[in-house]
């Protein structure tokens, strides 16, 4: 077990660095959870925002639009002065500014002109204001075509505004129809686990890949297979520790809510399989990396890129079909599919169980493929160097 021991010795020597990465990524993870939380990340419910309507027209339609929006949002009265508007937007005192131009009625109802709006980037709430304006202006146009005056039409739409459609929510998730908070934490766990493992293992493997060390190992009596097996064992130890720390973190942040969730074993199994994938990715990456400076660039591209494509930061639902098709070829996608499945259902039916197992198996296949490629590469390299 000399290689395994050597691996652990090097790890021990680099322990401060391992801790550093754990601290960096756990901080990011906890900050995300505390500041954004599941509700803030992507909201599917229209919220009440602070908005401003700049009325340069003053007509009935403009006034109607302002009072229609006031029934959903808080209207902040801000003078029509660019520098003041800039100031309020900059400090997030208003999130949305609709500027009603002169001759609004003619421009909008007859000439098909659109209404200029300015939003603060980030968050999806501005989208709902757009929709509300669409509803109002189209409604007025329809009533107007139907013989109503603009003033009466606006009043009619405002009257209808309060009516809520009859929607019944069957609590399918077991958390009031919402995705539980810990599921959100598990959603971006791939970023945390893959980052920590890729960074730390890449640096550890750099020591093993040094030409002299490598040659020394190659001329020993140890067969390549034993050598690799011992390396894998070393990887497994680190992977287990990191997985355990991440699972522990989720348990500490969510406590009882997570521990009493009947799906806890599924979350754990899914993230465990992901850890195996992450180890395979690290092994793959570290086979190619030759110098310290490259580690961060390569790992960054890999982790951030995969996270964006596979629905780690932006939920899978929102990603377009095209992206999702590409993401099928990445292991993290299957992790996220599983995570959504676990989070979105209080009980899993037999077909959903099969789906879950499929997801796990596909992840394992990815891990095997990455591992195989890396081993072939290492062997070829060893032969060409020899």
């Amino acid at each position: 077990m000399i290689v395994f021991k050597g691996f652990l010795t090097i790890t021990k020597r680099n322990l401060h660095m391992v801790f550093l990465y754990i601290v960096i990524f756990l901080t990011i993870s906890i900050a995300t959870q505390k500041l954004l939380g599941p509700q803030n990340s992507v909201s599917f419910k229209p919220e009440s925002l602070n908005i401003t309507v700049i009325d340069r027209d003053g007509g009935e339609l403009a006034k109607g639009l302002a009072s229609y929006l006031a029934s959903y949002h808080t209207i902040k009265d801000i003078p029509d002065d660019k520098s003041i508007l800039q100031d309020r937007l900059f400090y997030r005192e208003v999130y949305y500014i609709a500027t009603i131009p002169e001759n609004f009625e003619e421009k909008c109802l007859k000439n098909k002109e659109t209404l200029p709006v300015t939003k603060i980037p980030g968050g999806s709430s501005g989208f709902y204001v757009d929709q509300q304006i669409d509803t109002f202006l189209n409604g007025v146009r329809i009533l107007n075509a139907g013989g109503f005056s603009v003033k009466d039409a606006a009043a009619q739409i405002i009257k209808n505004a309060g009516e809520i459609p009859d929607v019944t929510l069957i609590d399918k998730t077991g958390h009031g129809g919402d995705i539980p908070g810990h599921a959100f934490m598990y959603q971006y766990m791939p970023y945390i686990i893959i980052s920590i493992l890729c960074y730390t293992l890449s640096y550890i493997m750099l020591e093993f890949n040094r030409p002299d060390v490598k040659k020394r190992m190659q001329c020993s009596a140890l067969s390549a297979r034993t050598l690799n097996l011992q390396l894998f064992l070393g990887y497994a130890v680190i992977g287990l520790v990191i997985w355990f720390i991440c699972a522990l973190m989720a348990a500490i942040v969510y406590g009882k809510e997570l521990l009493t969730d009947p799906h806890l074993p599924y979350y754990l199994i899914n993230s465990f399989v992901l850890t195996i994938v992450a180890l395979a990715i690290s092994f793959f990456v570290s086979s190619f990396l030759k110098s310290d400076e490259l580690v961060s660039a390569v790992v960054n591209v890999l982790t951030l890129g995969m996270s964006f494509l596979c629905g780690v930061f932006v939920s899978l639902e929102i990603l377009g079909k095209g992206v999702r098709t590409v993401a099928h070829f990445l292991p993290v996608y299957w992790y996220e599919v599983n995570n959504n499945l676990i989070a979105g259902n209080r009980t899993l039916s037999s077909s959903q169980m099969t789906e879950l197992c499929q997801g796990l198996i596909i992840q394992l296949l990815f891990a095997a493929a990455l591992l195989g490629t890396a081993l072939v590469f290492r062997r070829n390299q060893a032969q060409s160097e020899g």
Partner: protein
Amino acid sequence: MFFLFKYRFLQTIREVSVMFWALAFPVILGTLFYFSFGSGIESTGEETWDTVKAAVIEEDDSSENAEAFHTFLKEASGKLLKLRWDATEAEALEMLDDGKITGIYYVKDTPSLTVGKNGLGESILTGILDSYNQNFALIQEIASTHPEQLPQAFEALNDYRQTTREETLGGQTLDPNVQYFFALIAYACLSGAFLGVRASFDTQADLSPLGARRSVTPTHKLKLVITDMTVLVLIHFINILILNVYISQVLGISLGDDLPSLILVDFMGSVIGVCMGLAFGSISKMSLSMKMGLSVALTLVPGFLAGLMFGNMKNLIELHCPVINRLNPAAVLSDAFYCLGIYNDMERFTRCLLILGAMSILLFITAFLGVRRESYDSI
């Protein structure tokens, strides 16, 4: 001085793999961003969202409203909405539970919808029901007061329009996802820190043979640090410019029309990134891998706080602890981009640049103080 500059430059660009990745990594990330949500309409948005599946249960189709809703659903069914008409209520509920459908519409006098959770598909279904209700109320109103105008009203109804367009305060139209690209450029600027840390190794005698060689020269340390900085800023600045050209020309994401100001922000960003690395590299005595690790923290954490991963982050910080946004170089950079691209606010833009300038000078002085008058034991 020119001599120093020339050889430092050659030495830096000859590390091909480092140069390649310094440029390639933001470019690759930008491309991935583009595919994830970049072009607004093409990758995210209604056109490419999956079809939402729902079942329809006809509870009571005798009333006028129920009949109208039935017809409405028949017409609404298409690319975005796929309806199943053949299921019984029990079957539909089972499909809902199994996740095969997103919701169940009930055709009756007051049309209703049943969903299993809160999500995108569910809010699309709710939106469809809501718009039906609203339009039905409108048409009913017209039918009772001006029945002769109904054909015109239906014509207007079929011509449903998008009525808003996103603009900057200055009046240019805006790509809604441009914020992610601003955050990416800001992050790419800060990654100059890696180059800076790497270069600081070559000024310290205890860390590298080249550092030892440079330490014994009679050249003033300030000269050495200035050379390092100029070379790195130049290289990094060119990389960032290439990234800008790539984002605006190849990916087609508009970064605003004010080219000189944009280049100025890019330049200040490159300076702060490199200075951060140089300062950090000079003051701390650690191994290269440890320093690289801390550089990850130094670049990734500010990037995270400025909204690189979750777009809403910076807004929340502005509300709860605005001072972080004033001190975080990534946030100041992305604010400068916002001022340029969204607020059209030159006053605040200048202030952002001044903050960056002041930080860079401070960091540069730190870098110099870190290596000046350093002496080593003779062993």
